[in-house]
């Protein structure tokens, strides 16, 4: 029973970290309806940034948030302006190849600039949090809280603010929104940059947990894609649920079946969801075409 509780809760915690890293991807998909294949490399870049800040200033990586989140917002805006926007009115494959090219480019630049070495930061909290027979890394608990806050805050922005209303209008009918005076290209830009900023946030939370190296994005991007589709493409609370599902399935299958199968079991879960709920757990009908839930 102890083992089960440990695995379940650890799975939920690590799953929430996966969710945090996927929210940016689902947001961009929900609004722009493009898939950013360089998402993992955005994460890599932001992790290097946070690592650089801890090295140069000697601060813990959470302080890096103050610089990394705006920096990634700016980076996202530049990528959108130079690569994504020109491809938006072209056939869908153009964006796919453009972002994929960007992904390979970023990996290799990182390899040249940073070499293949693993970079790490020392743990922020020296000891695990112990609850009865269970052990948890404080960094994971903190990540869980940040993910919850982030999901709620994002929901609030989308439901309650003017920007959120404009985003929803753009998703529902871009042309009508434009006629109503909503600057749709700006909304796209802000959403893409915002998604990128969220990756920056995730990177700072993940740095004390994972090493950073040029291909670190590849370890996570597949998980992020699964979570986005599993949760319902464009659904933010769906991403949270999807992330937790992946974390728990990974943790339990590794223990009760075998860790050698790696990602196989959450792909089985993924297939099952796709067969029985093709729009994902919380996605609306036709999510792949419509985007974010209205």
């Amino acid at each position: 029973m102890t083992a089960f509780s440990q695995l379940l809760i650890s799975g939920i915690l690590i799953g929430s970290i996966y969710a945090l890293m996927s929210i940016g991807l689902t947001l961009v998909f929900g609004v722009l309806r493009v898939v950013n294949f360089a998402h993992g490399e955005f994460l890599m870049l932001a992790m290097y940034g946070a690592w650089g800040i801890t090295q140069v200033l000697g601060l813990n990586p959470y302080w890096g948030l103050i610089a990394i989140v705006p920096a990634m917002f700016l980076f996202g805006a530049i990528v959108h302006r130079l690569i994504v926007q020109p491809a938006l009115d072209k056939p869908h494959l153009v964006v796919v190849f453009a972002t994929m090219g960007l992904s390979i480019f970023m990996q290799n630049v990182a390899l040249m600039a940073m070499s293949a070495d693993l970079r790490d930061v020392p743990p922020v909290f020296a000891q695990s949090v112990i609850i009865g027979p269970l052990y948890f890394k404080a960094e994971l608990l903190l990540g869980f809280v940040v993910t919850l806050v982030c999901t709620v805050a994002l929901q609030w922005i989308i439901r309650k603010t003017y920007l959120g209303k404009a985003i929803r209008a753009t998703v529902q009918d871009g042309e009508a929104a434009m006629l109503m005076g909503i600057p749709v290209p700006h909304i796209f830009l802000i959403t893409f940059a915002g998604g990128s900023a969220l990756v920056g946030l995730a990177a700072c939370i993940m740095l004390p947990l994972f090493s950073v190296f040029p291909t670190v994005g590849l370890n996570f991007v597949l998980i992020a894609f699964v979570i986005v589709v599993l949760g319902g493409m464009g659904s933010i609370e769906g991403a949270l649920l999807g992330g937790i599902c992946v974390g728990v399935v990974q943790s339990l299958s590794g223990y009760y079946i075998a860790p050698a199968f790696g990602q196989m079991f959450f792909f089985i879960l993924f297939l099952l969801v796709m067969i029985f709920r093709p729009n994902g757990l919380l996605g609306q009908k036709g999510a792949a075409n419509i985007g974010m839930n209205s």
Partner: protein
Amino acid sequence: MSFFLRLAIFALSLFTITAGPVAAQEPIRIGVLLPLTGPFAKNGLENWEAMQIARDMINERGGVNGRKIEYLQGDATNPNAAISETERLITREGIKITTGSFASPLAIAVSQAAERNGVFHWETTGAAEIITRRGFKHTFQVGAPARKYGQAAVDFVVEDLAKRLKKPVADLKIALLWENRAFGKSVGDGIRAYVETKKIKLVYDEGYDQFATDMTPIVQKLKDAAPDVLIAISFPNDAILFQRKAKELNLNVAAFVGVSAGYSSPDLRTSIGDMVNGIFVADFPPKVNPNVLKPETRKVADEFYKRYEAKLQRPPAGHAAAGFSAIWALFTEVLPKAKTFQPDELREIALKLDLPEGSLVNGSGIKFTNFDWADDTKDAGQNLRASIGVWQWTKQGNEQVFPPKLATHEAIDVPMPDWNKR
């Protein structure tokens, strides 16, 4: 006047033209294939430094029978690049001797290209058994084969750790954790077969995906199995994730033995800090007890370590020391006896080598197989006297602890203190 001056210059130039080849003989050109870019680059570049030190040292001593050594570099980033770079050096540069290549997949590729072109390949650190089991005639692997890594780990547990843990070997609970790709699996298979011959049962034996992002299930399973000794074969990223998770979930073992790769990388300490202290590593020895070395080898070793540390500000890792040891043996034991430098002649010289352990800087000797080894008659060119042992991460650096004759230090921290006391 000007006529005489011209005549003098003409005479002088004639003299230099004819005297040239006599004064400075042609250098011996060797192709060095190492991963200088890409994911293996870090270790490849360290090996390259060690190789350069060897070249400088031999040239300062007057070269090989008066001929200087010259290197031609090939960048063996991956197996495909390794093949094309080897072929480039052979066909365009006319190289007759190649060396390198740090990692097994690269060694397999380089030796294949060399053999196809009838070129002599002197492998320094590749480990896969297959390298010398393809019937090649001109490939010689100076470093230890893969099975020896695991055997060293098991021998250490049986002959040393059991005593320190005050338990009979039969009562010792040993767990084996391996990453499930080529290297981890082949070492894991070797260990499993070897412990069976020692009548030891493993309490846990499982492979895992090297790219796993969560180690919770593995650590939890190990907590259930509660082994005394854990032997793990990992790469750097998963080794770090595993150690952090072990600390988080408070998995304590009396001794931890990592095998090569992830646990021997000098960066492990930069990544996980003092958590490395006490971990044992079965691998090439980075530095052995000087008493086992022949007196002349000891002098060479001293010079190598001094130069390496001066250049890189840290002592060499085991693979760099192995790279130096192997290439130095080529310079001092093989090439001086050659006249034609043709691959067949070099092969004959290599096969005649019979150097006792302690002849090379890292404690190895040399005796190659030639389709005559009792355990596998398909094996040719494998060095049966390559040293491999176990060293330990200590507060100051690392110390060789096994086998006893190579040891610089006694094993400490057995049993390992629990996480909350570290």
